């Protein structure tokens, strides 16, 4: 059985290799004249071309076009039929009695989304990085079944935002598992999904649940790159566990921490799909965040205000840029990256 299996496998390998070699020869036959024509140097351009084309058409050009959209009005998607309105969209976005009171702004939804996003980013990133760090430290210890536990914490990362949202809506609904547990312990039923505060709380918990495994892995890799001799030397000098944590682990982990902070913050600013499937932005506007504002203004609303949506995404891009540059600079001045 195993012999036939091995034989079959070898034959399949053989077939695959043969197929690949045939393909190579075919491509070669077509490309050789091309190479004779453009030369070896020229081939570099041929190699880089497809990627550059897609990149240019779907990333670079749209980035530039976004500016144009932000300064034009109307509801037409095609740029040549959009009237130029200058700073109108941006001034409308920033027309505010008091920036801390969303109700006093002309585009109150945008400011509500901005305020929600701000609170979300601060809380989510703090909790996420802290839990990921603790988990990474624990997984870095001499434990049985490290590979298993690493996979356990990582698994939710693979789940799609819609699936994550549905799993938790099922648990948190009125007659769900969590309410059953609370009542079994003698508590009162809680309306988790229809209360603004609870919805905001669970949005954070769920995104931490779904993402922490990824950052745990990165931090774990950072921890394992710290040479063990350092700890041995510290122990020889009589340093305790806490002491070596503060003076070896944390400083040497800082570059990795910086990567984790930048990545998690950028993702937090863009929070959308999970929440969209979980609460739809509600109750009311309690979990409306910036990307959803862009999506609703530009695509979901009856009147599609592409200009406003583009202006809002421009503001968001600026925030992202400032965050990234700021953090990297912070890292550089404190000498960690």
């Amino acid at each position, binding site marked *: 059985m195993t012999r036939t299996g091995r034989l079959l496998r070898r034959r399949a390998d053989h077939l695959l290799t043969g197929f690949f070699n045939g393909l190579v020869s075919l491509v*070669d036959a077509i490309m050789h004249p091309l190479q004779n024509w453009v030369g070896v140097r020229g081939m570099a351009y041929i190699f*880089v071309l*497809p990627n550059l084309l897609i*990149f240019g058409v779907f990333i670079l050009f749209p980035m530039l076009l976004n500016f144009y959209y932000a300064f034009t009005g109307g509801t037409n998607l095609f740029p040549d039929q959009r009237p130029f309105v200058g700073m109108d969209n941006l001034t409308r976005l920033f027309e505010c009695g008091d920036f801390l009171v969303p109700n006093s702004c002309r585009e109150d939804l945008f400011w509500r989304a901005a305020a929600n996003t701000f609170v979300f980013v601060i809380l989510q990133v703090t909790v996420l990085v802290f839990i990921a760090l603790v988990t990474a430290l624990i997984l870095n210890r001499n434990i049985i079944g490290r590979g298993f536990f690493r996979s*356990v914490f990582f698994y939710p990362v693979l789940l799609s935002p*819609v699936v994550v949202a549905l799993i938790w809506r099922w648990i948190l609904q009125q007659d769900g598992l969590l309410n059953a547990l609370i009542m079994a312990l003698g508590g009162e039923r809680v309306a988790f999904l229809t209360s603004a505060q609870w919805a905001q709380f669970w949005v954070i918990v769920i995104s931490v649940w779904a993402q922490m495994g990824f950052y745990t892995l990165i931090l774990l890799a950072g921890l394992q790159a710290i040479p063990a001799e350092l700890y041995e030397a510290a122990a020889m000098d009589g340093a305790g566990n806490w002491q070596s944590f503060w003076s070896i682990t944390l400083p040497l982990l800082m570059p990795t921490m910086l990567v984790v902070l930048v990545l998690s913050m950028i993702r937090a600013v863009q929070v959308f799909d999970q929440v969209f499937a979980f609460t739809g932005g509600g109750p009311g506007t309690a979990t409306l965040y910036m990307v959803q504002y862009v999506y609703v203004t530009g695509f979901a609303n009856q009147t599609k205000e592409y200009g406003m949506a583009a202006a809002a995404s421009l503001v968001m891009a600026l925030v992202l840029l400032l965050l990234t540059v700021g953090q990297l600079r912070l890292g550089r001045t404190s000498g960690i990256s």
Partner: protein
Amino acid sequence: MATVIDFFTRTRGKNRLHMTDFLTYLYLAAGTLLMFGPIVWLVMSSFKDRAELVRFPPRFLPYHQETVTLPDYKDPLPLFRVTLDDGSVRTLAQVRRVGIEAQMIDPQNPEGEVVRVNINQREPVESIYFSFENYTRGVTRFNFWTYLWNSVIVTVAATILTLLVNSMAAFALSKYEFRGRDAIFVLTVSTLMVPISVILIPVFLVITEIGWTNTLIGVIVPGAATPTGVFLLRQYMLTIPDELIDSARIDGASEWRIYLQIILPLARPALAVLTIFSVMWRWNDFLWPLIVLTRSELFTLQVGLNSFQGDLQTQWDLVLAMTVLTLLPITLVFAVLQRYITTGIATTGMK
């Protein structure tokens, strides 16, 4: 035997179980429960029938009330264990219920007299029952195969395209000297942090102009030139020695042959990592397909699942079963490749 015990009691301290060991395993156990608990609960719930789903408090295993079909009655009758006034316990079938009174008959003797009991005197007869109907009904109502097919096409085609164009570009950027090389590289890397959500509208315009709205190709192509992939592959290809390429050239190999037969096989570890990323990104992608696709026969699983839960707010029996089916493929891939996935991501540190 002794080694087994040694293994399981391996601790930090010399001999005794250290306090921190206890806390470590406590944390890991709680973590496992928190991470897997919700998914286990989802899977168990997906097998419950509708009556069991609305039951409060819920039970872990899917139960289902037993019924009996009798010749004189059109519908199957539910079975109850009834405690009669004289203290005896009998299994009876309920014919109908009026207020707090239930009218029951003996299934062995359907012609016999109707027993009237208070509804508090009866307990349903239940057995564990996995309701696969949720899945079979869900699959037809939800167009599961269509969505699955769309998702598979998008994921596979996008991943192949991404691997191809990214590796070609990375090869050029790492192994050739040409004018504009550094500019291209810097431009690519500087957009690493630009999310699609920021340029949603203009990308949508480009798609519209090309005529790719409501096509799967419109979902596949725009995300193919991933800066992450180019960066990752270029860094890896830099470690491939140039001498290999030079000697291949001396042997008369064309540049394409070098790319296909030397660079690609040697860059296999990096390609594997990018494959994992790409599959993960594309399978779970939501916002972009949501915007490009408005015709439901083109929906991917994620978009379909989201609209399904909106349409059938209360039909949890079908929604839960479809959620399980949606997470199943990626879970199987993970179960098989988990070691490569976790180490791959840990070493590159990107998503």
